[in-house]
């Protein structure tokens, strides 16, 4: 299926609408057909729902998948959590007739049936596989002279048994997409480490979650970058709002700008930080914004 439906999830439309806007602008520019998915709900959040009850997790996830099946479109996610939840549920339901029967019994209550005709995609793996860094470069109008700390996030690539995106200790495909924008993806200590938010830890154990984040931020600062780039709004929220919480808790002064890949790509495609909602972040870093405006104006 070449046609996609854009699955928003919770954090993108309800906390970081800049990521929604940036994604729509990029998809349009790249001439990728992605329609809205009206009536979609929480994916549901893998950390909490998958941890609670498998039948409920599968039922809610399958409803979202069925909405896309009805539109005869594959689902496009912009969040590692949504991707993990929906792709895992889709796989389990396609694989197991028993789970499918059980889930369809629940779905029958709302007049739906899971058919197994749609695929679940993540924008990063989609762009990499369907377009590739070389073709993406052709669309870039403003090469970004930026040093980036890339955070893959966990559920984009793991479990590798199901994701099949290669090895997980030092993957390169996402770095290649970052570098297609002209930016340099800088290596840093514990690059593949989790941001500390997932699995219900940010909500259930806030202090421990911030401790993991602080470690990650310290490693990133040492690398001397202009910004952090992620592919997951939950990691994004952890890095952005979490940075302020870390500063408050540890007396640090982190002020590292945080961009979703759609926003980084959006800059390279010629959109402004304002259009892409980058200025709506909790972290306000004037120097970074000035640098972006200088790059856009051809002054750097």
């Amino acid at each position: 299926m070449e046609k996609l439906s854009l699955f928003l999830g919770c954090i993108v439309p309800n906390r970081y609408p800049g990521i929604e806007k940036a994604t729509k602008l990029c998809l349009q520019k790249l001439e990728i057909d992605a329609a809205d998915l009206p009536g979609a709900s929480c994916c549901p959040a893998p950390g909490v729902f998958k941890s609670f009850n498998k039948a409920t997790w599968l039922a809610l996830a399958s409803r979202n998948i069925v909405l896309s099946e009805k539109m005869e479109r594959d689902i496009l996610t912009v969040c590692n959590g949504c991707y993990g939840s929906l792709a895992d549920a889709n796989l389990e339901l396609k694989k197991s007739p028993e789970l499918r029967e059980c889930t369809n019994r629940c779905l029958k209550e709302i007049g739906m049936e899971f058919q197994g005709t749609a695929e679940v995609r993540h924008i990063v793996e989609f762009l990499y596989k369907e377009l590739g860094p070389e073709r993406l470069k052709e669309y870039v109008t403003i090469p970004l002279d930026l040093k980036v700390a890339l955070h893959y996030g966990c559920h984009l690539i793991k479990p590798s048994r199901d994701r099949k995106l290669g090895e997980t200790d030092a993957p390169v495909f996402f770095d290649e997409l970052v570098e297609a924008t002209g930016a340099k993806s800088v290596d840093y200590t514990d690059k593949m480490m989790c941001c500390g938010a997932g699995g219900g830890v940010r909500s259930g154990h806030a202090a421990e979650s911030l401790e993991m984040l602080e470690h990650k931020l310290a490693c990133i600062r040492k690398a001397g970058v202009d910004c952090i780039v992620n592919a997951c709004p939950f990691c994004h929220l952890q890095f952005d709002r979490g940075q302020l919480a870390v500063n408050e808790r540890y007396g640090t002064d982190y002020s590292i700008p945080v961009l979703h890949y759609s926003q980084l790509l959006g800059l390279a495609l010629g959109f402004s930080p304002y259009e892409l909602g980058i200025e709506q972040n909790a972290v306000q870093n004037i120097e970074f914004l000035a640098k972006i405006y200088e790059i856009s104006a051809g002054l750097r």
Partner: protein
Amino acid sequence: MSEELPKVLKAAGLDLLSCMQCGTCTGSCPSGRHTGLNTRRILRDARKNRTAILSDDALWLCTTCYTCQERCPRNIPITDALLELRRLAVKEGFMLPEHRRISEMVMECGHAVPLDEETKQKREELGLDSIPETVQKYPEALQEVKNLLKACKFDELTAEK
């Protein structure tokens, strides 16, 4: 706890018997470096049917990053097993209050993180509709989600016991 942990895990296709307690999981764990989570010990205790692990908060310190599962030399799906243990814990009534609130949020508005006034304004600034194209915009879709959760008896599962 009437059921035996190893049996439940095995029925879910998660056999812990091949675990040799090497500790690669704990050594790889980003949470365990900073918190009280000791994955190796949880696996050992589960195998010995020590059900006290179900009521231990440490079970909820795992971020489900899957690093332990990727690195396990015996290819044990460790994170999957941990999620199964969490589901057993919930069945026994162990749930953090914050997680209960998130469940209630989804039952009420279809989102774990619902729209707020501040974000509505941000959406408008970006030229987006103030209400996104999700369940929040369509009352009949929200009713569907509520009915579906009810069909799964999710309200009973997450009710305080």
